[in-house]
Each structure stands twice: as structure tokens, then as C-alpha cells.
């Protein structure tokens, strides 16, 4: 399943956005349903996320890896998550670009799910993922603005 979403961070530079996205504290606050977020080695994180996709609810333990980092324009997230309703594997290309209005972040992800997530949640997964990503972008924007205003 392909999921794509992008957001323009008004008045925020690509560098500023990059730094915000690399800030663990910010990520912990912005990741949807994030219960814990620990760096276990460089660019590898263990996270616990509470996910609520339509009729499927559950706590997921996930390993998140950042690879192919090219500051400040690109990185890739590899996610392996596991929870009661099934497993999630995702590979997301995160692209940062400058524009007059501000930095544009484009996330294009390839996501596969198993178990109940697939058999029950599949029809809504795409929509919910987009919603969650939108939420994530807004939270990042808030955090980035806080940092800018400091």
C-alpha cells in the first residue's frame, strides 16, 4: 500500500525542519500515540505506539531505523512494528525541499500490514495513515515554531 502526503511548513527553513525532525524529544511528542521512544543505537529507535485504526486498536512495539541520510534534504525511515492486531512494515522516503512559503516535507511510504490490520483495517488504513501523518506534520510545525521563537 502506497501512502503519500506532504506539508508546507510556513516560514521554516529546510535546515530548521531537519533539526526539528532529528530532535528525539520533539519526535516523542509528535509521533501519534507515542508511549516511548528510545534511541538504542545511532539512528535506530525503539518505540511504543498506540494505534487506533477504525475497528483495530492496539499497542505496537516498533523498531525505527533512519538510513540514507542526506542532510538536509532526504532520509529514509524503515519501520517494523508488531502488535496484537498484526504487523506493520514500512519504508518511507522523507524529502525536504525549499520553497518561498517555507520548507516542504514530502513523505512517500510503502506500507504492508498483516493479520487483523490487513483483514479488518485495510480499507481504512490508508485514510487513517494520511490523517496521522497530517497530525504529525502539524505537531512538528508547532515544535519547529517554538524553536524558531526561542
Amino acid at each position: 500500500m502506497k501512502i503519500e502526503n506532504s506539508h508546507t511548513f510556513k516560514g521554516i527553513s529546510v535546515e530548521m525542519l531537519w533539526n526539528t525532525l532529528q530532535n528525539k524529544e520533539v519526535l516523542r511528542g509528535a509521533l501519534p500515540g507515542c508511549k516511548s521512544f528510545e534511541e538504542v543505537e545511532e539512528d535506530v529507535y525503539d518505540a511504543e505506539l498506540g494505534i487506533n485504526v477504525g475497528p483495530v486498536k492496539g499497542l505496537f512495539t516498533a523498531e525505527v531505523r533512519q538510513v540514507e541520510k542526506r542532510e538536509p534534504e532526504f532520509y529514509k525511515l524503515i519501520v517494523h512494528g508488531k502488535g496484537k492486531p498484526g504487523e506493520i512494515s514500512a519504508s518511507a522516503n522523507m524529502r525536504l525541499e525549499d520553497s518561498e512559503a517555507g520548507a516542504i516535507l514530502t513523505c512517500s511510504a510503502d506500507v504492508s500490514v498483516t493479520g487483523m490490520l490487513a483483514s479488518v483495517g485495510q480499507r481504512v488504513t490508508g485514510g487513517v495513515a494520511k490523517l496521522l501523518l497530517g497530525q504529525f506534520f502539524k505537531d512538528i510545525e508547532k515544535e519547529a515554531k517554538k524553536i524558531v521563537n526561542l
Partner: protein
Amino acid sequence: MTTVVGTSLKRKEDPKLLTGSGYFSDDIKLPGMLHAVILRSPHAHAKIKNINVDEALQSPGVVKIYTGKDLEGKIGRIPSSWLVPDCNLKEAPQYPLAIDRVRYVGDGVAMLIAEDRYTARDALDLIDVEYEVLPPSVHQKKAMEEGASLVHDDVDNNIAFHWKAGEIPEEIFHSAEVVVKESFHVQRVAPSPMETRAAVGQYHPATGELTLYCTSQNPHIHRMVLSGVLGISEAKLQVIVPDMGGGFGGKIGVYPDEALIGYAARDLHQPVKWIEQRNEHFMASNHGRDEIIEVELAGNHDGKLTGIRVKNIANMGAYLSTMGPGVPTIDFGLMITGSYDIPHASCETFGVYTNTTPTDAYRGAGKPEATYQIERIIDLFAREIGMDPLELRKKNFAPKEAFPYTNAQGLVYDSGDYEKPLKKALEIVDYEKLRKEQEELRKEGKLIGIGLSTYVELCGFGPSAVAGAIGFQGGVWENSTVRVHPSGKVTVFAGTSPHGQGHATTFGQVVSDKLGIPMDDIEFVFNDTKAVSMGWGTYGSRSTAVGGGAVSMAADRVVDKAKKIAAHELEVSTEDLEFEKGVFKVKGVPGRERTFQEIAKAANYAWNLPEGMEPSLEGQAFFDPENFVYPFGTHIVIVEIDQDTGEIDLKRYIAVDDVGRVINPLTASGQVHGGIAQGVGQAMWEGVVYNDEGQLMSGTFMDYTMPKARFFPEIENSFTETMSPVNPLGSKGVGETGTTASIPAVMNAVVDALAPFGITDIDMPLTPEKVWRAIQKGREQA
């Protein structure tokens, strides 16, 4: 002398069921009963690297957890029971729980047993399984390609079997004036009975006996197979099927789950219950169909058909299920000519392993698929030569005079008169007028379609010698015992096992007529292997034709003996007696008579029996028919399609079925209605969908559309009666005719409605989106 056979008695079974007084598997409560749940694979194909059960075991209330490794060598493999010969069949082993590799979403990985069902279900989430995901093979055609991931390492190209029947001389297709080709996918469907599967095991340590209550269409087959799997004497294993909410083929199979529950009950010396959840049912109960059928029909411009060549690529799923291999081969391949006298036929079937739920018999089992391809291709042939599809059918029907008729694949159809139901159906709809109306309405832009299906199907399994020849691992005869108590009340034991068909009503009518006693004096015992001598199950529309035959013969034996006793008491010879409405009368001497009840008492008291006669009044019969039965008929569907939305309105549904003698028109009509609902369901709404990773996308009733009463017009059904010569009742099968006939009838109607757009075929199910897209495409091309 018939009094109740042929009348529409209300079902004896209904008051109990309708007042909530039924007794289903989940109603069973035994002292100390534990509850089992099965952990199922979330992956279509993966290696099991490790299973950690520690946390789950520590959960309060959890009693035991079994993994595949724990059970290695303790429970046998789950075998297929239909080993079709001469097709290089490779039966890959299926273990009760996967040992080191899972092969479909739903494959059992562990069984957890706890003190209550909720504890069990919650603790199941604490089992941690580490998988190494392998690439899956999902679609049968891709699974056969070089380089496809192998479901079983030693089965090359995933080909489970390659079966052929019939040969066509080269010149038939070379010299044919017209050849029409099409490929049809009769898609995968889920049987979805109202009650999911269930099992309750109870072990009796003192005697070493195991009682297994479970959902099964064939308790004696379950006993036979499971006694081998569990290593327990058939004489110590009792299988009981309580009330059961439907099967439709999905409960023929002997699954790993019943074996696991039996094993656990014996191992723990405590009763264990397992109730399948609905989402579990979607992934772990056998599916039906999933056959890709390529068909070529040869013939002449005048409509004479000369040959049919068929290739079927059947998706068998991850393992060969109980009856799985027989469905796309014997059941399908020998019936490809349908009701038509096509002199040459050949069928080639590939059974393919994939990383999906196994497929098995589903209402009609092979015959709906066979009927679909012939009834569809004959419509396409008619369009090709510009002939009315009705005319083409009539021109090629196996003629009435030819019965018993041998089809091109060698099957002998027992009896038939295909024009008879056709004529009746045409009268009901006024076909000529209908075609004219269709023409007029088309001019107004209304899309009306008329679909015909003039089917024949094979059912009533059957002669046991034939079952042996086609690789079925068992017999297919039936048995019944009619036991007359001293009061004259009767208990009838029968081998076929009802689960909604109304055996007690229809068999009761047979016995009531035979013995001349009221329906209320007759009780039945079914579904218990300890009480009933033997039985080969309820599937393939065999209960009335074969089971009813056994009941009829057993009742005849009772009458024979009773007559001898009556003659002895009345001091006449049996020839001097007539038996009418339950009374033995001396011919020509009014008042010299004995009632059936008086004889019942005399036989049981045994004070004064004919010399040498054994006491009691009981008849038992074992009936092995000489042939299958071949019901037939005509279904006509009228649809209107909204060209702006693609929605199909079922305007009328007419069914005229010839199922031989109809014992009870009400219950037979019920079977026809239900069968039609399931067939129309396949044509229009249902479909099991996997994505390319082998994930089940249609795992709930939100994603899998079941037919509902409000989707249908009133079904206008009636019968003609052409007796079968192969059983005492003259009856054929009625359980599957509706499903077999209706799938092509609906599709033919829809394609007929869309003919102005040049549309010749649409894949099932006929969702409005698919129909709308086909219309758009047709418009673009026009």
C-alpha cells in the same frame, strides 16, 4: 396409497430452533471444562524461528500451551480423503499445528488452553512468535510459473496434481465452422454458515474412550479419520454432532482443530471446548471454488455443437483438504458437457498449491463451476452465430429418448427430460413476449437482460465401487435402522446427518407412509457414531437419494416381518393380506385385521410368533445405489441495469427444477431458495480477496457481502418430476441445484442486458463498479 409423501408438511425441526431451544456445540457445558484458542499465522508464508510462550503461560488461568513441536509424533498428519488417481497427486503433509513453517494466513501455530474463554483469548496475545517472512505464492497461475516461491519444497511448480479426462480427435477443432473461446474465473468464496466451527472433547480415563462433539457434515468420516490421526480405536471414539447451523461444504473437512481438541482433552483429562470466531472462520475454514477455467466450444453455423475442450487451473490453497482434489477433477471435469449432447469433450485440470486457505467442496462442489462454463460459453456461441440462446440449447439437449444417457466423458445420466422444465419455465415468463418487450425497452434506453440456465448436475453420491475407482477414501452407501417399540412408536436411525435440511421431516414422511403411522409416532436419531451404525455424510445432495433410500428399505423390511406376524395371528398366508394405512387386513373379509401397533406389541412380547422367527420388530438396510442421480431444470433470470450507476436490479427469478420425486415441496423449495441465494451471492456480491502478499483482505462481514433476503425478488419456483430409476424413492438431489443453476443464469442475464455495448463477459462478483466500468469501456469502443 401415498398419504404424506408429496405434501408440504411444516418442518418438525422448526419449533425447537425458532424458540431458541436448539442445542448447539457452544451450549455444551461440562464439569471442569477448559477453553482452547488457536494462535494463527499472520503471514502467508514464513519460517517459524522461535515461539516464546513463557509470558502467556504465567498469565493466571492459563493451563497449557501446545506448539507444533510439542505435538510432533503425538498427533498424526491430517490427510486428504480424496486421492484422485492417475494425476501424479502430491499430498504435502499437513500437521495439526505448523512445525517450522506457516503456509497461509490462518495456519495454526499454537493452541492455548485456559480456564475460561476470555482468559484464553487475552493470553494468546502474549505468545511471541518470531517469523522469517518468505515470499508467498498467492494466485494459482503465477504459482505455476518458473521461479515462483514453493509452498512445499518438494512439489515442483506448486503443482499438486495434473488430471486429464477425455480426448478430442484433432479434426474436431480443425474442421469446426465456429470455435468460441473464453476464460472464466469462478472466484473464491467463503461458505459462511450461520454457526462457525466448534469442537468439545471429553475423555473418559476409566475406559479410555473419547467423546468428541463437533461441527461436522459427516460424523462417521470424522471418527474414521480422527481415530487414525489420534491413534485411538474407532470403537473408543464417539463423534456427536449437536444441532448445527449450516455447513455448505465448509464442515465436510476434517480439520486440524478437531484433532487438537480431542488430543488436549485426552492429554489433560479435562473437557476442552473450542469455538471458532467469525474472523477465524474467514481465514481458517476451507474456502470454495477459485478455479480459472479456459473453455473452447466447437460447432457449426447451424448450431450443432461438436466438441468442448476445457482447462481448469484450480487453487487448492496450502494443503489438500478432505475432499479438495475431487472437486475440480471428478466433480467438474466429467460434467463439462452439461445437459448437451456434445459428442467430444476433454478436460485438463491443474491443482495448484498456494499460500492461501485450502479450498474444498462448497455447495455444488465442481458442478457450479462446470455449469458456469458450459452455460456461459453456450450463450457466447449463440451470439457468435446469431441464434437465440434458447434455440441453441434446445437444438443440443440430450434427447429424452436417449436416457439413460452416456455423456462424452462416460457418465451415465440416470433419467432426464430437459424440455419439460424448460417448457414450463418459458410458459411462466412468456419468453416470446419478453424478448419483444426487451427490444422495445432497449429503444427507450432501458437495459433489460434475460438469462437462461438449463443445467444438469451430478449428485447423490453414489455407488461405492465408483467412489473407490475415483480415489475417494471411503464408501458412499447409506444405512438406516427402523426400530419399532412395543407401543408401535418408532425410532429411526439414519446415517446422513442433518444440519438444516429437515431430514426428520422428509424421512418421517417416508416412514409414515410406509408404516401407516402418524408423523408424531416417529422419532429420529442422527449425528451420533455410537448410536448410528454408519453413515457417509451429508453433502453432494445425497441425503434423500441415498439416505432416504436406506430409510425406505429399512421400513419395507419392518412391514415384511410385521406382515408375517399378522398372517400368523390371523391364520392366513401373507398373500391373503393387504396393508393399508397401518392396518393388515384379510382381503375380502372385513373386520379380520390387525393394526400395526398390535403387531408391534406381538413382535416385542414374542408370546406367539411364527415358528423360527426371531423376536422384535426392527429393520435395517444398507443401501448402495447403482448410479448417481442427475437433477436438471431451467432457471430464468430477468435483470434491469442502471447504466448510470451499474447497479443490477433482479426483477424476476424463475426456477423450474426436476429433482425426481419431491417428498416435501415446502422443504424442497426451501432448499432451492437457499441454493439460489448462494449462487446469486457468488455471481453478484461474494468474493474472498487476497492481496499479493497473501493477506486476506475480506476477513469480516464488512468486507465480504453476504446475500440478504431484501436483495431478492420473490423466487418463483416449481418442480417437474422425472423419476430416478436408481433408488427406491425415485428422488434426485435438491440441495445444490439452486446454486449450480443460478450463477450462470444471473451472469447470462447481465451480459444479455449489456449486449448493446458489445460486452461478452464480466468477472464475478458483479459489483456496480465493474458493471459501470464495462459500460464505459463499451461506450468508448463503440
